[in-house]
């Protein structure tokens, strides 16, 4: 017997898997026992429990919730959705189910408001975003330093059931657009909902039309796998029945002596589990009983890997550098990190610079404003000074006049006392003067009034002011030689 231990000098270190290694089939001498490996795997997964996530996409009222209830034979709680949502939003609900000793963590994601808006151009976006987010969460977990993937609650969507309305003609434009956006991200199984409104001949034509439209537009739907001989036959035949025409019901109707799940019409009873009535049984068989594990695998191996690759490429990771030498993740990571830090620093500098600039600007502005205010202040001060000076001047002027007045008054009084004879002359003079004055009086009375306005202000009291006024006025008219 040959030894299978690798000798360093014979084969080379590290152990190379390429080269002239021969794989040989050996026959066993007895029962070793590693044929229990599948059972070990199974018992491990049973203890762990299974996880399955279904996404139901379809118009409001098309029968998504009813079908889920029918498939899993449970009443998942569900309120009726309204047609008047502003947009599409996804509603995930997780349930723990158990059948014999197998536990299933089932998540059903509903698309609320799908197909109700008048403008449906953005309807697919929330769905794509949700799927991507689940992938992203898994990726983050995978990239962690300390990770616990075995414990991780996998929320990635394993299957998308797309509900097609039973118009009997073809797909709707929204269906085509949405499925094209989803086919590279998730396994799609299209189903015809409420199929009890299509007769057999119409159904045949409808199915053909739908499949041809999907093919001609390059929409990739999930194909049941035919590589495993045990299920390849049934899977192949089921592939030919796509899309499945389903009817859902949770109500039971008595048919013969059994109560079956069915819909009761005046013209007959549609039995959900009757294969000549609809394809419900086929769907259940394919989705749950045969291919559930394959769906999970496909999601992980194909859709998730595609997402991961795109995402990492976006981030700048490559498998081979320009010289086609394999890249070490570590080196790439280091390079990325340096770049990132460099970026950060630059950004910080920028921000600091901006901050400094802003501060300078604001300072300059404030200085300007200060200067302006200062100028204004100076100006006002000057004005004030001028005004004051003017007023002072006037006051001085008035005081002079007042003195002059008083002097003349005194002079006139002494004159009148010493020369009473000159009265007539005075009178004449007075009259002349008055005339003169009356000729001039218009302007001089104005002046007087002006003066009268000023003088009384310097008096201590009101009656004094009146006196001032009156005496001024009287003095003016009575003074020979006039005033000014």
């Amino acid at each position, binding site marked *: 017997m040959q030894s299978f231990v690798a000798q360093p000098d014979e084969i080379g270190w590290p152990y190379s898997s390429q080269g002239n290694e021969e794989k040989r089939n050996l026959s066993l001498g007895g029962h070793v026992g590693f044929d229990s490996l599948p059972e070990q795997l199974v018992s491990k997964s049973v203890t762990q429990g299974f996880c399955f996530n279904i996404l139901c996409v379809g118009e409001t009222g098309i*029968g998504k919730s009813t079908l889920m209830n029918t498939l899993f034979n449970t009443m998942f709680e569900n309120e009726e959705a309204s047609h008047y949502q502003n947009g599409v939003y996804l509603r995930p609900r997780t349930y723990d189910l158990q059948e014999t000793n197998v536990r299933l963590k089932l998540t059903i994601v509903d698309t609320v408001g799908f197909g109700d808006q008048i403008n449906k151009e953005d309807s697919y976006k929330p769905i794509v975003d949700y799927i991507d987010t689940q992938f992203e969460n898994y990726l983050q977990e995978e990239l962690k330093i300390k990770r616990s993937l075995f414990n991780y609650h996998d929320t990635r969507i394993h299957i998308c059931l797309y509900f097609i309305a039973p118009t009997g003609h073809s797909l709707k434009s929204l269906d*085509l657009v949405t499925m094209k956006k989803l086919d590279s991200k998730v396994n799609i199984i299209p189903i015809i909902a409420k199929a009890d409104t299509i007769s057999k001949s119409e159904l045949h034509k409808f199915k053909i039309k739908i499949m041809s439209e999907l093919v001609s537009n390059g929409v990739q739907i999930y194909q049941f796998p035919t590589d495993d001989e045990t299920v390849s036959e049934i899977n192949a035949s089921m592939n030919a029945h796509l899309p499945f025409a389903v009817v859902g019901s949770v109500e039971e109707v008595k048919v013969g002596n059994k109560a079956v799940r069915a819909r009761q019409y005046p013209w007959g009873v549609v039995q959900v589990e009757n294969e*000549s009535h609809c394809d419900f049984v086929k769907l259940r068989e394919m989705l749950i009983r045969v291919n559930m594990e394959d769906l999970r695998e496909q999601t992980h191996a194909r859709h998730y890997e595609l997402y991961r690759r795109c995402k990492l490429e976006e981030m700048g990771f490559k498998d081979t550098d320009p010289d086609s030498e394999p890249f070490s993740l570590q080196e790439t990571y280091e390079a990325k990190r340096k770049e990132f830090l460099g970026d950060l620093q630059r950004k910080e500098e920028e921000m600091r610079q901006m901050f400094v600039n802003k501060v300078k600007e604001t300072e300059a502005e404030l200085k300007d404003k200060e200067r302006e205010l200062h100028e204004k202040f100076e100006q006002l001060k000057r004005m004030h000074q001028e005004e004051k000076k003017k007023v002072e001047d006037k006051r001085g002027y008035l005081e002079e006049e007042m003195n002059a007045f008083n002097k003349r008054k005194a002079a006139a009084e002494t004159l009148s006392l010493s020369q009473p004879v000159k009265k007539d002359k005075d009178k004449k003079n007075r009259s002349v003067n008055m005339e003169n004055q009356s000729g001039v009086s218009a302007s001089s009375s104005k002046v007087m009034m002006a003066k009268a306005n000023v003088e009384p202000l310097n008096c201590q009291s009101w009656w004094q002011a009146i006196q001032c006024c009156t005496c001024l006025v009287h003095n003016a008219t009575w003074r020979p030689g006039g005033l000014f």
Partner: protein
Amino acid sequence: TKWEFWEIKQAFEKQYVGFATLPNQVHRKSVKKGFDFTLMVAGESGMGKSTLVNSLFLTDLYKDRKLLNAEERINQTVEIIKHTVDIEEKGVKLKLTIVDTPGFGDAVNNNECWKPITDYIDQQFEQYFRDESGLNRKNIQDNRVHCCLYFIPPFGHGLRPVDVEFMKALHEKVNIIPLIAKADCLTPNEIKKLKDRIREEIDKFGIKVYQFPECDSDEDEEFKQLDKELKECTPFAVIGSNTVVEARGQRVRGRLYPWGIVEVENQSHCDFVKLRNMLIRSHMHDLKDVTCDVHYENYRAQCIQEMTRYVRNESDNRMESPIPILPLSTPDVDTEKLIKMKDEELKRMQEMLNKMQQQMHDKEQ
């Protein structure tokens, strides 16, 4: 001779004047003239509109129809297609025009997808308006839409936003009769729930669908009962079929399923018979009347008001309008307001004058 016969008749039926024969005369003349009716069908594709029309008029209007694929419909615009057929029954001729609206609600973005439809209806009104105001009115063709059947999908929980918007855009231009399409996917309970829900939502959104006229109070009880049932049955849940199947020993229009046969004319299966009776056998003329007396008159009044406003604004340019401008018998709202304002001003000024006069008078005294 004729005169002798007439005298004898008169002698026998002294109190019989004879205008009771008017209905017969009307009947005779109308048969000679023939009738016309324009029916519009609207709704998303795949609702069974064409099948229903074929079932209603027992003919095949859509022999060579080509349906678009899904990718062609992504940006589809709404078209208006008219099919006109002349059909005759017991000497009565009917020129039936079916107005189809392919593309409605089929695109991904259906903003204002009802605009081509409202434009079409307005165009027919405008055409009639011109013809009616013209000099030679002998051969006016009435292309106005008398009735619009709107097909609501049975898959939802009630009216969808596009249904509401469509009906609100059209309810003042045409008689709308909403129908629940493809009713063979609903059990009787579900139909009742959906009908109640739709009636509720029609009230809530203020949509004015076609109302059956009230019975005269002197009709017999049976008729009144039928009428009441009819009204409570709206919106009608209909099924159509292009094929004849054998059911209960008879050949009937129906749909063949593995679990049974749906008969289109079976009243316990769907409301097709009620719709047909209402649309064709009893209310066809009322639909035409409401179109002429209400919808068309609304349009005409609006049209004239707009025109006179336009002409007033453009009075300098001496616009030549092909339609004679009729003087308004009642002033419109703006002029009335102005008149009122001026009146009040005058009153105020009058009062002031009086007051001043009084004052002066007092002063003099």
